[in-house]
């Protein structure tokens, strides 16, 4: 039954994405050019990567709002180290944020398991803690002095085309890493034992516990996974912007959760796919891009984004209601809360 709902959500989403793209192209032919699409995918690769992590946490029945602080801490430590030493290696730079993300994620995982308190509360606390300490230590200073290799890496493309104006464009290395991480997450969720366990825990924690699953290991894994992706995201974000501001990422947590929810993941756990999440990110990206192309005032973005989230959540809540009514009758529906 769940399978059916999920498929439906993704089909609706795909239809909306296609319809919206057609509408935007009609309004402004620039929208459906490869150049614009590649740009859109590049600029949203940070959002896409961390949303994959949030998807895994949501499927497990948890939620993480601290990953923005994790990404910031990870990229900031990297920034300080590479701008002080100026070691000219992207690989070494990349190897700094990833373990930091992993470690901060592990702290979240342990706290969520041992306190048994709603993960929203735990990750709000760790968000405040990680970010507060970082701001206190860094005093909010920006970093924009990077080694040349770090700067050159941002221009890397899978292939290069020329636009009519002679500007080179192509699929960015960051889009590629987003897609690769998406494929990894897909395999992890679909074909590895841990993936099945994550769905099982999110579907019914108590049942999974009684079936003998090691809840600690599973929860530790999902929070480490989003921590790891936040570390990678921190690196990508620093590359995309070529500067590190401590306050650039914190505040985006709700965008990411919104993208995952739009993509069909449920806050109740047990439901969600990589494909749907990709469409969710794409939908948000297209709407923002379309509004810019249509020269709509930036102030309307939030009104439209908010309406879409409420609408999507209402449709999914209504579907759930109908489903329960069909299965268990009207009275059960009253117990939805």
């Amino acid at each position, binding site marked *: 039954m769940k399978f059916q709902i999920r498929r439906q959500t993704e089909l609706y989403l795909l239809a909306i994405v296609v319809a919206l793209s057609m509408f935007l192209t009609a309004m402004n032919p620039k929208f459906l050019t490869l150049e614009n699409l590649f740009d859109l995918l590049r600029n949203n690769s940070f959002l896409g990567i961390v949303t994959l992590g949030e998807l895994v946490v949501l499927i497990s029945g948890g939620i993480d709002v601290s990953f923005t602080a994790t990404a910031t801490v990870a990229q900031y430590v990297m920034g300080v180290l590479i701008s002080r030493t100026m070691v000219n290696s992207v690989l070494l730079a990349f190897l700094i944020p990833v373990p930091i993300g992993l470690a901060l994620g592990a702290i979240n995982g342990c706290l969520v398991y041992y306190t048994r308190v709603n993960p929203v509360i735990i990750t709000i606390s760790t968000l*405040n803690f990680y970010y507060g300490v970082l701001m206190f230590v860094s005093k909010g200073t920006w970093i924009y002095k990077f080694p040349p290799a770090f700067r050159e890496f941002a221009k890397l493309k899978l292939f290069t085309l020329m636009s009519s104006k002679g500007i080179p464009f192509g699929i960015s290395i960051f889009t590629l890493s987003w897609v690769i991480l998406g494929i990894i997450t897909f395999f992890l969720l679909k074909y590895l034992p841990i993936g099945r366990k994550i769905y099982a825990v999110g579907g019914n924690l108590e049942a999974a516990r009684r079936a003998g699953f090691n809840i600690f290991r599973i929860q530790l894994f999902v929070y480490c996974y989003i921590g790891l992706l936040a570390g990678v995201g921190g690196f990508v974000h620093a590359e995309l912007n070529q500067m590190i501001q401590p306050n650039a990422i914190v505040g985006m947590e709700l965008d990411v959760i919104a993208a995952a929810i739009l993509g069909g993941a449920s806050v109740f756990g047990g439901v969600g796919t990589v494909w749907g999440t990709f469409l969710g990110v794409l939908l948000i990206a297209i709407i923002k891009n379309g509004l810019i192309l249509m020269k709509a005032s930036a102030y309307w973005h939030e009104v439209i984004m908010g309406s879409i989230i409420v609408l999507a959540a209402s449709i999914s809540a209504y579907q759930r209601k109908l489903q329960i009514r069909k299965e268990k009758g009207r009275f059960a529906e009253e117990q939805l809360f």
Partner: protein
Amino acid sequence: MRKSSFFKIGDIQIVVLLFLLVGLFLLMSFLTRGKLLEFQSLQAVAFQLPLLGLLTLAQMGPMVSGGIDLSIIATANLVSIIMALSMTRFFPSLHAPFAILLGLLLALLLGVVKGFFVALVSVPAIIATLGLMIFIRGVSLVITRGYVIAGFPVDFLFIGNGTVLGIPTSFLVFAAFTIFMYILFSRTRFGLELYLFGSNPVATLFSGVDNRKVVFRTYLLSSFLAGVASCVMASRFNAAQADYGESYLLLTVLACVLGGVSPSGGSGRVMGIVISVAILQVVATGFNLLGFSSHLASALWGTILLGVVLLNRLFLGKN
């Protein structure tokens, strides 16, 4: 609901919180070499506390019901903006009381919208209020274009900056609403139904309670209190803007949990909320006097919250 053990746990928590408050107060007084005990510092606490206090009371209802309201700050900002426009542009001749009435009506209207989505469409509270938060903030941005609206009449500024017999007016407002909430939550049918619903919605439904009505009223009440907080906020800052006080959002959740509201619903007392707000404010004012960064305070708040959660787990057993 395990009524007897619930009250016992609540009492222990309040005693622990009181000790924490007194301990932190003494520690801060010692660290600031008595500066915290000076009249001016204490008055500063009394001036700053009501805003966080009222917003936390607004967050309390949804959290007792087992939900959360992420849109209280956005609501307060939109209400401030409408009040500001009423006083400075639309109806300047009608003065502050009319603007406040208009603002509170808007707050109730927003409460109806939230109640509609959470109680009637059954959208999970965290998602519905997240979407509405973005939507409401967007409306504020469209109205103000991101600018600050400033310059209010003197009678309005009295709410946030005036004193009555040396006590800040805003503190009196907070005290009044604390008593109102205390009576509402512990002496009325609505309060009882809210706690019952928060601890076990299915059992509540079977005992003949209209769950939807309870949830609807909870979000209506929460929005109304956000509207009251908005009066204090706009008057205190003498300005209204789309994104004032966003850091307060997580702080209200923190204050609720610190004050004994279980994030899964069904517990928490107004008394606990008041003490926990006082704790947070004493830490903030103390840090300010010590010249520490506000970010260090936020790191410490995170640590306090985790500490309380862990202590609850250690001493009060499994949930």
